[in-house]
């Protein structure tokens, strides 16, 4: 189809899109716009839905709120802690699984299990693993002579605990995506590279990495966006608290607190808007970097 779009064809296209578009507009686009506007409500009577005054007060307020700053910092640490490790680990495992090894199917299932299991169930299991007295993790660490750590109650260890669990949880999905990407790389390139004298490592860096770059790009964008949006894991792992002494307070958790616990709709919307901007900037940066390094066929 190399036709140029005409008004008629465009109209026809819109007609097909209309049902999905309507749902999207009502449940996604409209709320986004409303919450964007809401972030500028300075004086709001929400019982009667009357706005007395618009302004930037909310923005000033949240940036002066130490909790919001903590939330931003924690979210940043979370993304930095989870995304690179998760990508490296899952790519490594995918490369191993992609080799002709025995029981590859079995391992694939094992790694994919965390993805299909509910966050709540996963968190319950992990809160056992992290338990300071009976936990599996402390038991293992005990072998190396490390004293028990109060993973979930010590503010210094709450964030690492959250990061470890999230890495484990996200591994399966990333591995499957990487495996699909690896299967798309033709065997012939590896044969050619062997004949051209490339060692296994050279084949990985010169063939696998560049040809996998679209997948790496996709996974990193998805992972970063998901990282910035982290909430369920915190809620479930710390029993509906943002960790000891706010040590696992994330931006979305902050939004949740402001909205549902404190009924500060303006502040919640503002925080959501700030998060949106952050994700937007990161995605743009990635797109720019991606255009330079990613190879598309």
């Amino acid at each position, binding site marked *: 189809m190399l036709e140029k779009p005409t008004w008629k064809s465009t109209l026809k296209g819109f007609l097909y899109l209309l049902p999905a578009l309507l749902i999207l507009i009502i449940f996604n686009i409209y709320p986004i716009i409303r919450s964007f506007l809401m972030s500028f409500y300075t004086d709001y009577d929400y019982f009667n839905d009357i706005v007395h005054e618009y302004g930037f007060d909310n923005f000033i307020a949240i940036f002066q709120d130490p909790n919001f700053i903590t939330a931003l910092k924690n979210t940043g640490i979370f993304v930095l802690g989870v995304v690179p490790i998760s990508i490296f680990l899952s790519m490594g495992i995918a490369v191993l699984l992609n080799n002709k090894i025995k029981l590859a199917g079995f391992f694939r299932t094992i790694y994919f299990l965390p993805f299909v299991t509910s966050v709540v169930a996963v968190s319950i299991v992990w809160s056992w693993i992290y338990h300071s007295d009976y936990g599996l993790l402390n038991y293992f660490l005990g072998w190396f002579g490390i004293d028990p750590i109060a993973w979930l109650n010590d503010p210094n260890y709450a964030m690492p605990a959250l990061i470890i669990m999230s890495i484990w949880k996200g591994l399966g999905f990333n591995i499957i995506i990487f495996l699909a990407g690896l299967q798309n790389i033709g065997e012939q390139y590896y044969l*050619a*590279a062997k004949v051209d004298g*490339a060692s296994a490592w050279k084949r990985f860096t010169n063939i696998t990495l560049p*040809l996998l770059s679209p997948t790496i790009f996709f996974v990193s964008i998805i992972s970063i966006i998901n990282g910035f949006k982290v909430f369920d894991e915190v809620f479930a792992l710390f029993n509906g608290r943002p960790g000891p002494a706010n040590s696992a307070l994330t931006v979305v958790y902050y939004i949740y607190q402001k909205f549902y616990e404190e009924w500060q709709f303006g502040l919640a919307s503002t925080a959501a808007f700030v998060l949106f901007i952050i994700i937007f900037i990161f995605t743009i940066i990635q797109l720019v970097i991606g255009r330079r390094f990613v190879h598309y066929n």
Partner: protein
Amino acid sequence: MDIRLNNLTMVFDDITAVDQITTTIKDGELVSLLGPSGCGKSTTLMLLSGLYKPTSGQIFFGDQDVTKMDAEKRGIGMVFQNYALYPHLSVLKNIMFPLKMKKVPKKEAMERAKEMAELVQIGHLLDRKPGQLSGGQQQRVAIARALVKKPNVLLLDEPLSNLDARLRLEMREEIRRIQQEVGITAVFVTHDQEEALSISDRVMLMKSGVIQQESRPQEMYKRPENEFVASFLGNPPINLLTMKKIENGYQLEKSAHSLLFSNLATYPKSIRVGIRPEDFFVTKDNPRFTGEIIHIETIGRDTLIRMQIGDTTIRALVDPVHQLKVGATCGLDGKEENIHFFDSASGQRIETVERGEKHA
């Protein structure tokens, strides 16, 4: 550097793809591996390259036993059937790749790659990606990439099969030219007999993993060692007539046609007589074969006729000067040296002996 194969065998799960091949490929020679699909040509090439390791047997490059050596270390150049150009690298980078792996300084690598690109006449395409090239251009890049590290051996796996007839003709001359210019030992896999016969110093014809015959192209055509070789080469294919031994001579199956062959080395019960369509000529002077013409068609400058004798149909390419008609009776004969005999049981060629010898 000669390449020597000694009882080379490759067994996959349940199939013997290469079966006890023993041969020598001489330095600077271009050898074609010819044979029907699935006969083990690619497998043989993969064994030579080191991408497969043989089940048994040895490979020698010169005096060195390379049987267990990995492909990375053999230093051969290979052109794959599908070219396998690295899609993310430009033409120049593709050609430079083997040099980069050998840690050749970048500047020198670039110069050598450009030189090679000129040799295969793609110097103007260096910045393109493989996806932006035509099939013929991709093939030249693949050849340049295979040659740039100055390998001792060049392996080509049906490199021309994706090209149209005209480009094929051009490219095979090109490959021959480059091979001779560089003076490299080359093995060329193809299932196109014309390609094999025209390009190579020597042809190896394979079937089911076994070499049926290896000889110079013309010789293979003129003196097939067995029935398979005779029937594989030639288009239209050779006529093979089954004849049974009778009291004095041989009789064509289900016909009254009988012939006297007095110069065979042996006389088995049943033989197959092979004559190529172009080796027939029309004659009224006591022809060996007489029958009814059932079909006439013109192919280029020749006329192809089909003649029926009993249950047997003979194809012959004849000179259009003969005014032949469908339904008419016609006599065909061939020169003695162009008639091949095979033992029906073994398929092996039956040698003919000179008349003089026979009387002696």
